[in-house]
């Protein structure tokens, strides 16, 4: 039995909490490893930086890894199966230049899905992750009408064998969670980014946009990047470069 990262960080956070000088004041502030009893805060803004020039056209490791991590299964019906992340091929019709990139929920600061959701099931967490609260999702699909990135899927059939960390069920809408369960336990990465690194492409970088010392913030500061449908001014948490 080995101490996994999560338990290690959990115990560490508890120890830190124990050494508090006075209530509310802590000796050390843990930057990324938020302890499980603390609410997420606006101090973080999680996001991705995707470099499409590093993304290989015939590789879909990120897609497989995401769907493996979150238990998104192929039910054999392409038009109704959920896709939390997909590879999109973008071709310039005049020059013929073509490249590919992974596309998922862009985790907007002002998400149109959350605006239109009648019950508030679609929402943005304080740390910028856009989620569906499936407990109060009534399955009206208005968010799917509103999302400019077509990032959402409706679950069209009964689902079994869900992952413990990714509950999902018939009649509700879902999308990329930015591997929120991994973020919450302090893994500091997402399944797609891990898989991309493992393939040697390193086209996907996960990090805290608000942390000036993070690699993602440094690269965004020094390299050109863009948002998809920047005209909508949604301030997305997922940024692209390389095209």
């Amino acid at each position, binding site marked *: 039995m080995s101490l996994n990262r999560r338990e290690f960080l959990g115990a560490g956070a508890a120890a830190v909490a124990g050494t508090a000088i006075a209530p509310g004041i802590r000796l050390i502030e843990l930057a990324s490893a938020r302890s499980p009893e603390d609410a997420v805060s606006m101090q973080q803004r999680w996001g991705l930086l995707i470099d499409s020039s590093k993304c290989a056209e015939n590789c879909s490791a990120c897609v497989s890894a995401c769907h493996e991590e979150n238990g998104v299964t192929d039910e054999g019906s392409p*038009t109704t199966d*959920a*896709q939390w992340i*997909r590879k999109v091929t*973008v*071709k310039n019709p005049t020059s013929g230049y073509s490249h590919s990139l992974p*596309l998922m929920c862009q985790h907007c600061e002002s998400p149109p899905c959350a605006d239109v959701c*009648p019950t508030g099931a679609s929402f943005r967490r304080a740390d910028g992750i856009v989620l569906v609260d499936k407990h109060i999702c009534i399955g009206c699909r208005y968010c799917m009408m*509103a999302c400019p990135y077509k990032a959402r899927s409706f679950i069209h059939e009964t689902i079994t064998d869900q992952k413990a960390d990714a509950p999902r069920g018939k009649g509700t809408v879902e999308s990329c969670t930015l591997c929120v369960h991994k973020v919450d336990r302090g893994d500091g990465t997402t399944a797609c980014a891990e898989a991309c690194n493992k393939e040697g492409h390193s086209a996907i970088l996960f990090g805290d946009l608000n942390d000036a010392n993070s690699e993602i913030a440094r690269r965004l500061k020094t390299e050109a990047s863009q948002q998809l449908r920047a005209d909508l001014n949604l301030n997305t948490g997922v940024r692209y470069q390389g095209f």
Partner: protein
Amino acid sequence: MKKVHYTMIEGTSLGFWSLLAILGAFIAAGLASSYYMEHHGHIVTGMTNQIVWGTPHVFAVFLIVAASGALNVASIASVFGRKLYKPLGRLSALLALTLLTGGLAILVLDLGRPDRLIVAMTYYNFKSIFAWNMILYNGFFVIVGAYLWTMMEHRMNRFTKAAGMAAFIWRLTLTTGTGSIFGFLVARQAYDAAIMAPMFIIMSFSFGLAIYLLVLMFAYRWTERPLGDAVVYRLKNLLGVFVASVLYFTLAYHLTNLYVTEHHGVEGFILLGNNGGEIYSKFFWIGQIIAGSLIPLALFYMPVFGKSRFFIGVGALLVVIGGLCQMFVIIVGGQAYPMSLFPGMEVSSSFGDGKVADYSASLPEVMLGLSGIAIALAATAFAIKVLPFLATSLADEVADPHYQANDAATGAEASA
């Protein structure tokens, strides 16, 4: 002008019970479809992750829009003081309630989790036009119910004008809300237009009046109650104006889009059937424009047809069918056209990016949609049996404020 009496219909004939039985069968089929869809999931429908709203929504939005329009007849009497419309008011408010019930029933039964209706009623996101609509729809029942009460209870008659005004403002707000469901969608090429709200209001005038006219003519003919030409001609002329207005708004909407290069793709798709949009251009030109607008206008205004009850009825029915076609083009056509993710680029993916989405309605969806209409009609038929909604006579000497005795001969002939 004589005093107007209202009586219940007898509703004991074999024909009446057969009508209820047939409508009941449709309702049962709709409920069975809904159970089937909920049990298996939406996989058994034609709806997909690309076409997320399908046939049920075409019927539901049509009925909701028509509901607020059906109330217009009553509003014209209470708010604008037109005497001819006064005896028509009760049925108008009744239809408003039953059509809305039918439409909402479809919407609720199509939800992914219809069992969570209570969640929809208890959790509100006030930035969502959908949440606003839930309040507007529920409020509509209360306000129109109260309005009906002031019309049907003598002691309350003095409040009719105030209640009518409130209901009128409420219904304009409600249809603005319904139109804005589409108007507020930034993501899709065919929506995201402020004109949607006023266009839906004028559509409601047209669809609601067409249904009202059909129900009125059908009910009076079947119960052998006199229905004078004054009422019928007035209503059909008004309907003609509304149909023409919808055409105008449709024209303005498409002209605006045609001017903007960005929208040429989606316009070619809907209007010319480019890129696999044939089905939508057929529904648009044949369904909405020719059958739903031009033919009814001809039937209403050409003297050969305009005096015939039969052709007026056909015209009103065509307006209803054209309205359903228009809804199909707006709702399904608007979704089938691919979203512009990378403007100016050709995109492709495993998720249907850059590709026109296929949609074919499944039987359960269609049954669910039709059951909404059946619910509205069955509720109306039942209501006019148990409460006095219909004027005993709408013959010209009763209904027409400008009726003169020397017209009596012709008037009597017409209503015979």
